[in-house]
């Protein structure tokens, strides 16, 4: 058996797992592995800040379905990665984070660039490791990939002391993983699936409510067949957008805090809620006591047993991989002719929801093209026209994120990259860069705000260095827009530190070696956006929008879905 250094073992193990690109930043404690990396066929993307590396890996993972790989040094390198790791944990994103650590003899001595990253990331990783012996290294990386990518995916940190990277050991990559404490359930209980179909068949006003689990499981085709086959309307969480084609009339779009009136009213009136790979987050449910008050039955499909009955009572829990469970459910439904007779009743219910949607549609200002100032809705329309809807959109966090979620019709899964659970400003630009590495042939747009973009603007340097073809749209209102909106509505218009000066984004892009555009009037929008989209390489587009534009409707914080504000 050939003998390799720990550093070489890391590289060979990553290759054995099918990794093709690493997002990282070198430093003292990880230098042995960087040295080995130079001789390998792995691509490496040098980021400007380790947080950027983690979000790039997240974008890569969300688009490809495979774990994203991050490599950082000890101490500040690792702690800079923590926000991205926590983000990946909240949004069930598989990451492998290899961090250098000070030598084993120095651990615990407050050595230079030492941080207890295993301790720091324990509550925000699916699992983590400190590898103290080179003999354990290959097995640990094998386990890390298995844990990150299976079950409910999540980030795994592998912390490797410098001397372990330098130690030499015979290398053979293990073929199997043996973890007696970790065995995710794949197949759902057939009895529960039967019960769920019984309950659906009996219901008068059933509603699908689907989340990010559908996309991670690759279950969008099964979901689409089941929903269309039954003719039951469907609403998606922020992380679930794209699981079902938005152009299908059964698709009601996003529910929750910024869900439309029709969609949230459907949730308030359903008698059978079928939750699929969603976790009843507070931004979805609002005041939990008043969530789905008429639901006699709540069915919950999820791979993570701890997500079930955590926030709401669940009548029919089904633990399993969404794809496998939906396949089994499809079989049960197809074998049952009686269920076809329910279509008429369900169609009536669907029509009722569509009537609610017409009653109070999202953003009735259809005349925005005639106004001088650019409206965000107009920007989204033009984005859709120019891309024909076929693009990946990475967003940051705030008003622009909610406008995209409300208005951009996602037809395919893995098309919206956004920080849902943690709500991390600064996610969008690096996530978009990572997405482009996973899908070089797809158009990648980043939609950001003037606040968010400044959180990780330095990654523009990365985009330029690797000539990443992404178009970054900044909806610029010279405010932290969502903060301003809350201050306007809930803090008596007292705008406490939400106004922000911004750089000249065109000059900034130029300084980085990218192209910049600025749009101030609605009549410039279509033409300039077209030119910007046609410009190769990284492009920044600064679009000035009025600060008064608000994300509507909204559930007041702590309020219920039935208490939505419309102005």
């Amino acid at each position, binding site marked *: 058996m050939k003998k390799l250094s720990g550093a070489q073992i890391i590289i060979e193990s990553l290759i054995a797992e099918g990794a093709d690109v690493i997002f990282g930043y070198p430093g003292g404690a990880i230098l042995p592995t960087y040295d080995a990396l130079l001789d390998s066929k792995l691509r490496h993307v040098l980021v400007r800040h380790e947080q950027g590396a983690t979000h790039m890996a997240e974008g890569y993972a969300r688009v490809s379905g495979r774990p994203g790989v991050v490599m950082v040094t000890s101490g500040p390198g690792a702690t800079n990665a923590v926000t991205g790791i926590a983000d990946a944990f909240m949004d069930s994103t598989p990451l492998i984070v290899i961090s250098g650590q000070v030598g084993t003899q120095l651990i615990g001595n407050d050595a230079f660039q030492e941080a207890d990253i295993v301790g720091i990331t324990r*509550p925000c990783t699916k*699992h983590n490791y400190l590898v103290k012996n080179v003999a354990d290294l290959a097995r640990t990386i094998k386990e890390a990939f298995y844990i990150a990518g299976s079950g409910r995916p999540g980030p795994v940190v592998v912390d490797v002391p410098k001397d372990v990277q330098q130690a030499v050991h015979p290398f053979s990559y293990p073929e199997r993983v043996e973890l*007696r*404490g970790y065995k995710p359930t794949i197949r759902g209980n057939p009895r529960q699936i039967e019960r769920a179909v019984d309950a659906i068949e009996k219901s008068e006003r059933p509603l699908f409510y689907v989340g990010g689990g559908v996309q991670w499981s690759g279950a969008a085709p099964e979901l689409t067949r089941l929903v269309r086959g039954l003719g039951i309307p469907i609403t998606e969480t922020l992380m679930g957008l794209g699981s079902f084609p938005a152009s299908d009339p059964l698709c009601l779009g996003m529910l929750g805090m910024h869900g439309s009136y029709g969609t949230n009213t459907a949730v308030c009136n359903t008698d059978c809620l079928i939750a699929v790979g969603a976790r009843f987050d507070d931004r979805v449910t609002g005041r939990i006591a008043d969530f789905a008050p008429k639901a006699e039955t709540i069915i919950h499909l999820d791979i993570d047993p*701890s997500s079930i009955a955590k926030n709401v009572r669940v009548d029919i829990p089904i633990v399993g991989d969404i794809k496998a469970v939906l396949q089994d459910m499809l079989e049960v439904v197809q074998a049952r002719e009686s269920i076809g007779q329910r279509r008429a009743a369900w169609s009536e219910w669907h029509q009722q929801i569509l009537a609610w949607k017409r009653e109070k549609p999202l953003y009735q200002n259809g005349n925005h093209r005639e106004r001088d100032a650019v409206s965000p809705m107009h920007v989204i329309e033009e984005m859709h026209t120019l891309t024909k809807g076929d693009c990946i959109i990475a967003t940051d966090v705030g008003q622009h994120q909610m406008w995209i979620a409300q208005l951009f019709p996602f037809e395919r899964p893995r098309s919206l990259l956004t920080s849902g659970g943690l709500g991390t400003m600064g996610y969008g630009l690096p996530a978009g860069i990572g997405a482009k590495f996973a899908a070089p042939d797809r158009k990648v747009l980043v939609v950001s705000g003037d606040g968010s973009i400044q959180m990780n603007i330095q990654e523009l340097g990365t985009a330029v260095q690797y000539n990443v073809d992404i178009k970054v749209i900044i909806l610029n209102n010279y405010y932290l827009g969502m903060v301003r909106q809350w201050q306007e509505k809930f803090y008596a218009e007292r705008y406490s530190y939400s106004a922000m000066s911004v750089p000249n984004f065109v000059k900034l892009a130029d300084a980085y070696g990218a192209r910049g555009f600025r749009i101030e009037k609605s009549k410039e929008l279509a033409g300039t956006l077209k030119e910007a989209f046609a410009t190769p390489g990284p492009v920044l587009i600064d679009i000035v929008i009025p600060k008064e534009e608000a994300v509507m409707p909204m559930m007041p914080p702590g309020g219920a879905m039935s208490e939505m504000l419309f102005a």
Partner: protein
Amino acid sequence: MPSHTISVLVENEFGVLARVAGLFSSRGFNIESLTVNEDPIDGTVSRIVIVSSGDDQVLEQINKQLNKLVTVIKVTDFQGVETVDRELMLVKIAVEDRTRSELDAIVKTFRAHVVDIGPRAQTVEVTGDSAKLRAFIALVRPLGIKEIVRTGKIAMARTVQPEVANQRSLRESA
């Protein structure tokens, strides 16, 4: 809120207690008592016995969250199960000539042992369930307690479970 005893079989490796304890603190679960021991027969595993309190929903979440930890092999929740449970306590009690015989009687009745004797104090070892230990403390308090050390609870399901209608069976999950 009712107390529950949960026995957690874990991989015997570094950091595993921090994972379990960290889960309780980060999710706001309560730990009333905790014991940890390497399994005397299988050295690759350790057993953590935790007494926690909460309603059924909290208990269910504790079980599920513990099971989610990669290093947790098995969680046994003793709710609704007849168990043998024990705690060990060392109590240093002040003694004078006039109280010595009273203490002797209490020690005898509780089947406790005197394990250390000094001119003004005796240290007594008591084992038993929580109620017995509480009773012992109440009886020796008037004599003057100088120091108490007490372990957490360890528990084991009884081999023969009484037949009770609707009794919840021993809930085990891997």
